[in-house]
């Protein structure tokens, strides 16, 4: 399975809504449509993609403020992704067992916790990427990919 973090999931959701939205959203302003297409290519099929309830909550908190037709489009994309991907619940107490909690917080500590069992993780959080690599986890680093084109 492939595990995806919040900021990378935001790129995926925005891209599925309309790839042109990626440049215009504050959270994804450094990215281009190319980053979305490369991300989709790396994932392959959505049934390989796994995330955490925490990641969906963070993503929705950051994106669920669309108006009118965009709002319904957002709903359709989230519905599609939730139905085609899988979710793994981990208790918050497991995040607290990890030293990385002090630096990364609950969600990213849980990603590290199960990242070791995944084929790779997808992140656009440079600090999470640093910790994952230090822990021997294979990473698809969206920020690094984007910066390689500057």
């Amino acid at each position, binding site marked *: 399975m492939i595990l995806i973090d919040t900021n990378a999931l935001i790129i995926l959701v925005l891209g599925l809504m309309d790839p042109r939205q990626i*440049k215009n959203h504050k959270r994804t*302003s*450094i990215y281009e449509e190319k980053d979305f297409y490369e991300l989709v290519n790396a994932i392959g099929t959505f049934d390989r993609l796994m995330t955490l309830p925490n990641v969906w909550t963070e993503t929705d908190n950051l994106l669920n403020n669309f108006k009118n037709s965009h709002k319904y489009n957002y709903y359709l994309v989230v519905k599609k992704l939730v139905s085609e991907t899988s979710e793994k619940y981990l208790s918050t107490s497991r995040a607290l067992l990890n030293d990385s909690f002090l630096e990364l917080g609950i969600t990213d500590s849980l990603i590290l916790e199960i990242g070791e069992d995944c084929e790779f993780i997808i992140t656009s959080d440079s*600090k999470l990427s*640093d*910790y994952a690599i*230090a822990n021997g986890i294979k990473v698809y680093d969206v920020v690094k990919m984007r910066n390689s084109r500057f």
Partner: protein
Amino acid sequence: MESSIKEVYKVAKEELSHLIDIENSDYRLEQIEFNKQEQVWLVVISYLIPNNNKSPLLIQSLPFERIYKKLKINEAMEVTGLYMFNEAG
């Protein structure tokens, strides 16, 4: 827009090159936004430095830590501010 982002990236990188070993620090552009009211680019960059202040609370400390900085760059591509930045904010 894309050419502007590339230009801002270069200006920020040049500014930081006076402070860090830019080629060996995994320097990255993290966020960029043009503030229309102030007519400035707000840019967040990150880079790695040796971790010389490891917390006694941590069993596993990484040998490096990622630092985030915020820059303001005006339309003339001059850096007008360099600030600490908390990536959680």
